[in-house]
């Protein structure tokens, strides 16, 4: 099973495709990018050595189009496929298809994904090993009636979750019988479009939980190590915004118990390659197994910054059939790292996604600052894909040093043309409760109000007004407003009147 990988097709887009290609370049591995119609000029396409069109913009016709991706892999003569996260990364059928075509899938085997990626089967396994799981069903729901019965036994609120995958897709908090039927419909259709699998299950909703996960690496020879934990409690719509390592919530004995639990589960599942075991902590520091993400995770750079070790590089090495290049005692944890996900969305307006052309993106720089970005100047953010633009990571000797460095980096970040959450991230980093590390997944819900990031200094407002005034006079401002015949804007008329 040892086979040197010298050319990789990255079956993804955006920042994660860029990040994977970067490691490949370091290793002298050739790269192949795939792109949908709207991504033809995307950053990941420009980064790769070769690129191939994979289909129309909707994911089903492009980044989820398994046969087309295999066809491109064969045509471009690659050795392996890296799936990134999302899309086909946790699809065991795709792994088999890849293997059946004599290609290497950089990730776990199909059986391990089937077992651990299927959230309900994994809950059953954890439970059988005596690992505490969040109360709920270990089988997918078959009907609304069954859901109502289970929900009432657990008592509301409950969570509906997709069996087929994570990332918050298909997840809903349900507070009563009345919400259950429509909630199930919405969850099922979201799960169907995200994972091509509409099965959902119920979990008791734990109040004010903290989300802490363990990064693991496993080779094909039974070696499993952990790379420490990450706390990801700052979320909106069940999707993470801020992650950090180490968690400010747990001490060394709990950390030891947590990481050993993760390793035990991974060993029993026959899992290989990189993966993440997610846990929920209640306020009494009891932890419950939540689910396993059988892929490289969005927030993996937080771990990399602390240990100075490239997880994607190790993924490739494991996929080549090599034993782990490091042992547990080689892993040295240093300092504290925080990641903010920069999303194209409007926190002041319900976190609705926003679209548009990026007119200027300038990344912050400096000691301990890393950015994994998927776009460049002139790129377009469309409605077809996830709104993540980039990930900003700050490292410091202490949590506070990392936090202050993150604030400075965010303030230095220039992202013009799409609405984004940079102001929100600054607000979070500056929040007293966050700075004390007392966070849980309801942090934003509890403390955040849109007006908190809509307080603009007078100088900013004045400059904004003057700029509009001056540019309307001196330049034609780029306009997304549809022209209405020859009718000139009242603003212009007004100016002309005045100028006469």
């Amino acid at each position, binding site marked *: 099973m040892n086979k040197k990988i010298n050319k990789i097709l990255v079956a993804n887009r955006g920042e994660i495709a860029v990040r994977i290609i970067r490691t490949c370049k370091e290793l002298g591995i050739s790269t192949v990018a795939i792109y949908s119609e709207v991504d033809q000029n995307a950053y990941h396409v420009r980064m790769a050595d070769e690129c191939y069109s994979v289909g129309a913009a909707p994911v089903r016709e492009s980044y989820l189009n398994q046969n087309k991706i295999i066809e491109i892999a064969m045509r471009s003569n690659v050795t392996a496929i890296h799936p990134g996260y999302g899309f086909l990364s946790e699809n065991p059928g795709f792994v088999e298809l890849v293997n059946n075509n004599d290609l290497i899938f950089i990730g776990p085997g199909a059986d391990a994904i089937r077992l651990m990626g299927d959230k309900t089967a994994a809950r059953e396994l954890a439970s059988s090993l005596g690992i505490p799981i969040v109360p709920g069903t270990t089988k997918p729901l078959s009907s609304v009636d069954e859901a109502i019965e289970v929900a009432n036994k657990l008592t509301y609120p409950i969570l509906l979750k997709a069996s087929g995958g994570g990332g918050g897709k298909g997840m809903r908090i349900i507070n009563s019988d009345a919400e259950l039927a429509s909630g199930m419909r919405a969850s099922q259709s*979201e799960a169907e479009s995200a994972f091509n699998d509409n099965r959902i299950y119920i979990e008791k909703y734990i109040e004010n939980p903290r989300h802490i996960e363990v990064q693991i690496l496993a080779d094909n020879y039974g070696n499993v190590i952990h790379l420490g934990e990450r706390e990801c409690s700052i979320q909106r719509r069940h999707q993470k915004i801020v992650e950090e390592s180490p968690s400010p919530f747990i001490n060394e004995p709990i950390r030891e118990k947590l990481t050993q639990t993760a390793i035990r589960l991974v060993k029993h599942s026959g899992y290989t390659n990189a993966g993440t075991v997610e846990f929920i902590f209640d306020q009494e520091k009891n932890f419950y197994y939540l689910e396993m993400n059988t892929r490289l995770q969005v927030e993996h750079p937080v771990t990399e910054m602390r240990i100075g070790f490239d997880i994607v590089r190790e993924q490739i090495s494991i996929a080549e059939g090599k034993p782990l290049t490091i042992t547990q005692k080689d892993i040295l944890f240093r300092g504290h790292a925080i990641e903010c996900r920069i999303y194209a969305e409007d926190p002041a307006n319900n976190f609705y996604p926003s679209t548009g052309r990026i*007119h200027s993106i300038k990344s912050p720089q400096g000691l301990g600052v890393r950015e994994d970005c998927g776009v460049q100047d002139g790129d377009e953010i469309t409605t077809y894909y996830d709104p993540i633009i980039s990930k900003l990571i700050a490292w410091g000797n202490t949590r506070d040093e990392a936090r202050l460095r993150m604030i400075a980096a965010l*303030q230095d970040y220039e992202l013009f043309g799409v609405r984004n959450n940079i102001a929100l991230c600054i607000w979070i980093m500056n929040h007293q409760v966050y700075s004390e590390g007392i966070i849980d997944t309801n942090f934003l819900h509890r403390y955040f109000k849109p007006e908190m990031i809509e307080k603009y200094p007078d100088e*900013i407002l004045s400059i904004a*007004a003057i*700029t*509009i005034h001056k540019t309307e006079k001196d330049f034609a*401002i780029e306009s*997304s*407003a549809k022209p209405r015949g020859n009718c000139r804007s009242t603003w212009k008329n007004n100016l002309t009147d005045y100028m006469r």
Partner: protein
Amino acid sequence: MKSKAKFIFFTGDKKIELIQEASALRVDGKIYCIDIFRNSSGACTITNGNKTFRLYCKKVSETEYDIWIKHHVLRLTVEDQKTTLINKYKKNVNFGALNTSVKAPMPGLITRIEVKIGEIVQPGQGLLVLEAMKMENEIRSSSNCIIKEIKVSDRMTVEKDQELFIIESLNSNLSNHGN
């Protein structure tokens, strides 16, 4: 012949008053000396005395502008003298019921319309489901109103700010600023 022209801007509830004088600009009573340099990407560098800012301005409608400045994104609405007069008139007259529109808060695909014409909806009630960036977003009513007209259909792709519904508000306390 006037030597001064006055322009009013709004962002949210905040009002900004700009006065163009013979050789200076006065905003909320304070004089500003501002230089604007435009670079190739469309962004501007603004100097205000001893301070420098980078900024990007985009016109989104006849009277609305989005401004990116530092980490802030603000929408400014320009009010000319005609609108000032209309708003003044609006404040003095009780229109009773008024038809307004519900607009799409983001671009996306309509996957489900949850109301019918003539239906009375409560605040918080779902109107339609808009799918964008792999998430389903339910657009909810912010007021107690009657659905007068449905401007979109199932499986239709809509742009941000496109009209979705015409509604008649059933609340007597109408807001008279903005739409």
